[in-house]
């Protein structure tokens, strides 16, 4: 454990910082995948029309499927304190309880509740008492966080609701292990199975698919993250529950998954077996895609914090990464990932990419124009304009919603990455015979 904690702290990879004028999703978007993951939850976003408009458009057709989330839309009376926050929220929560009967209501605080200093944390226990439904408060606002960090704030808030004591004795062979990070149930099963093959029993997940099944967390428990944007959750686990954090790269790509499994085994005192075989097998199954990527260059504009892991994986696939833009870089939580990136670059004999925290999109586009990368991973605001300038793009948000974790999903990630390249190939074949519109400049 000492080892892993030390490796948590140090990395020599340099990180630059720009102006923070970049495009990303508002962190309240985390309700989109969290309400689906936590089946008995209800998410109430307390904000303005702006928040509602964003959710409505970003979530697309989900909004028509009677989702388990809603806006508590603040009106002028709420802002000027003519209405009583407590009474208003209580009224809405009672209504939600009556209509949906959730096991938990999660309040998502927004920019507006921050600015008018609405005391959500203070009101929650009272309303929880009055409505007899647990109320969890997460401040996932655009003043402090970017996109996926929304999930981080929600999970960090959930930790306080996890039980502290085991009702029955934990798994006998090694200390209990809890994995944190929201992944689709199918992916959770795959990762759990992967560890099971190493004799590791996963005691629980944060979050689990039911709020009522939150895992036990105390100083006996080892915890390990599955996604790179969960630094606040990790900190809370260590500080508030004295959990032991396993510092590992994230299980994205076969290389990442392998080291992730290895680190977990090591920390629990087990010897990993057959892992390199497993990794090789996975690589051999994606040979065709790797070939497509070989020697191609990629530029991450940065918006969802998955960038370091993806860049490391794609470097291993033979790509050259020019720049990794990232909204926020927690060098401690991502330390193992950064070190693996450095190691991968060395082994593949490519230069270490430039890592830019809080990037400036305007400057980045200038750099993209100079570098002319083969692929730019970017948000939807820039994808079409870049394509129309002959630069191939991949929409970054897809990586957030697709299944990308573990050996089993390796092909899915590469499917996404290679899709624009494959399309180009197809269109170029056509173009030679028809028109020159498709010929890239």
């Amino acid at each position: 454990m000492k080892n892993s904690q030390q490796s948590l702290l140090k990395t020599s990879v340099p990180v630059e910082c720009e102006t923070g004028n970049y495009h990303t999703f508002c962190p309240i978007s985390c309700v989109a995948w969290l309400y689906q993951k936590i089946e008995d939850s209800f998410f109430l976003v307390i904000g303005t029309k702006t928040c509602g408009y964003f959710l409505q458009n970003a979530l697309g057709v989900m909004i028509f499927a009677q989702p388990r989330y809603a806006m508590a839309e603040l009106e002028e009376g709420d802002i000027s304190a003519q209405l009583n926050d407590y009474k208003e929220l209580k009224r809405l929560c009672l209504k939600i309880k009556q209509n949906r009967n959730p096991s938990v209501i999660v309040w998502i605080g927004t920019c507006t509740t921050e600015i008018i200093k609405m005391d959500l944390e203070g009101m929650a226990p009272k309303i929880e008492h009055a409505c007899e439904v647990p109320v969890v408060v997460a401040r996932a606002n655009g003043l402090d966080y970017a996109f996926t960090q929304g999930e981080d704030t929600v999970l960090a808030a959930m930790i306080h609701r996890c039980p502290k004591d085991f009702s029955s004795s934990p798994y006998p062979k090694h200390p209990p292990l809890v994995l944190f990070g929201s992944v689709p149930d199918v992916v959770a099963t795959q990762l759990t199975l992967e560890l099971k093959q190493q004799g590791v029993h996963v005691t629980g997940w944060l979050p689990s698919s039911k709020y009522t099944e939150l895992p036990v967390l105390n100083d006996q428990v080892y915890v390990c993250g599955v996604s790179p944007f969960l630094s606040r959750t990790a900190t809370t686990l260590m500080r508030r529950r004295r959990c032991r954090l396993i510092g590992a790269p994230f299980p994205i790509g076969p290389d990442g998954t392998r080291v992730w499994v290895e680190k977990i085994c090591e920390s629990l005192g087990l010897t990993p077996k057959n892992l390199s075989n497993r990794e090789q097998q996975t690589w051999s199954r994606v040979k065709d895609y790797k070939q497509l990527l070989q020697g191609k260059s990629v530029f991450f504009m940065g918006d969802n914090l998955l960038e370091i892991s993806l860049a490391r994986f794609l470097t291993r696939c033979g790509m050259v990464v020019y720049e990794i833009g990232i909204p926020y870089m927690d060098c401690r939580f991502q330390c193992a990932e950064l070190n693996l990136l450095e190691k991968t670059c060395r082994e593949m004999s490519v230069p270490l990419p430039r890592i830019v925290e809080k990037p400036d999109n305007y400057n980045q586009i200038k750099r993209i124009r100079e570098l002319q990368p083969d692929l730019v991973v970017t948000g939807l605001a820039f994808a079409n304009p870049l394509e129309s300038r002959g630069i191939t793009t991949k929409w970054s948000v897809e990586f957030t919603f697709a299944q990308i974790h573990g050996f089993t999903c390796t092909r899915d990630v590469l499917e996404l990455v290679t899709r624009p390249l494959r399309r180009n190939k197809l269109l170029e074949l056509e173009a030679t015979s028809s028109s020159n519109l498709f010929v890239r400049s």
Partner: protein
Amino acid sequence: MKLAYWMYAGPAHIGTLRVASSFKNVHAIMHAPLGDDYFNVLRSMLERARDFTPVTASIVDRHVLARGSQDKVIENITRKDREESPDLILLTPTCTSSILQEDLQNFVNRASSDASCDVILADVNHYRINELQAADRTLEQVVRFYTSNKDTQAQCREKTKMPSANILGIFTLGFHNQHDCRELKRLLNDLGVRIHQTIPEGTRVNQLSELTRAWFNVVPYREVGLMAARYLEKNFGMPYVAVTPMGIINTARFIREIHKAKALTRLRVESFNSTEIKVPEEPQGLDTYVDEQTRFVSQAAWFSKSIDCQNLTGRRAFVFGDGTHAASMTKILACELGIRVVCAGTYCKHDGDWFREQVQGFCDQVLITDDHTQVSDMIAKLEPSAIFGTQMERHVGKRLDIPCGVISAPVHIQNFPLSYRPFLGYEGTNQIADLVYNSFNLGMEDHLLEIFGGHDNANGSEANSQGQGSPQLFEPIAQKCLIDWAPEALRELEKIPGFVRGRVKRNTEKFALKQQAQLITIEVMYAAKETLSN
């Protein structure tokens, strides 16, 4: 506080941004937290814009919260001025800046002394007005800014030699706006009217001072452009035509109004300087034009007489949308197609009186609300045979099994078609006729299919294996399963989305048979996924 899932009109700043990004070489800077620049995604995706959306944010973060924006906004303005040299930078407040109460006007004043471009603060209050009202205001504000100098006052008298018109209110993310604009231009051209300027779409702000040289203004949509038109009428005596040329009757009315406006300006100009301007004669009589277009260019009039349309007589329809489209559609259905409109509604609450007056006598009842649950309750209660509404009503229709034609924003990407689909003018009448007919007809088709027992393979092998239903003409598509599934594996299979589940099941079974597995466990499932996915 109000519990809400869906809103018809967006927040105010969206309206401002839509206007700003429609002008050429205008840049909008939002005073907003990270993530509020979602407008760029909308424009880039829905309009499939090839250019970068000229909107950036001056980010409001913790530091701004603690110390105020200080020089940040000004720096962002001057920086953008250097980088892109726009003609105008429009500083756009959001809900966040509304409550921060920073003196944005002061930033604008300070920035305009440093920047070489013009700088304006959009005058919109987030908590008082919505997207459409904000767009209307911003358009007026920009027009006012560029026409309030002395040159314009003088130019106002120098009308163009030929009759000409400005079209006000064509802009980005508008429902079929681009197609409507093309159709309007064609129509006006036929009437001997040149298009002077189309604002805001594609116009540069420094041309706006010439705006008043046009003979009159055309405001095709009720929601945006009217404020600017009224301002121009009041200050420069420019008449405007605010009839929406949607449907045959209204298009004819529009044409007559155009004629009137033209005559009005001609009189006025002739009284200024009697000889200089020669007004060309009408290319043909107005009535002949309307008659020919109605009978031969538009098929809608003939269509409404045809046997097809007879079947629509008295069918019940529900209409909901923005004021312009819902009102026009109600009139078209009632007067031109003989359909009974059981309820007509709009979410433009601020303009409710106008709407009520427009649809009075053409529908059984009027609904003015921006609460989608009220709309869907009403639809459920009235059970119309077709709905004409927004995307929300389309989904309500899906749930209730009622067909829906989309006639108004808010819309999805499929309502930004690549092909020519105007709603206005004579070609528009054709499009609307198709839309109406297809909505009803498909509803009928489904209904008849149900009566006659559905598609012959609808119930597939399941009905057959249970010994129910009609005998199958075709072999069942999926072969019978030869291998058992473990209960956990079956549960896992349930988690896979329905539309691929069948394929995953078949592939897994094939894999398991090849591996000679006895039972499909979760492990087998994922081994199958890894092996078979390539």
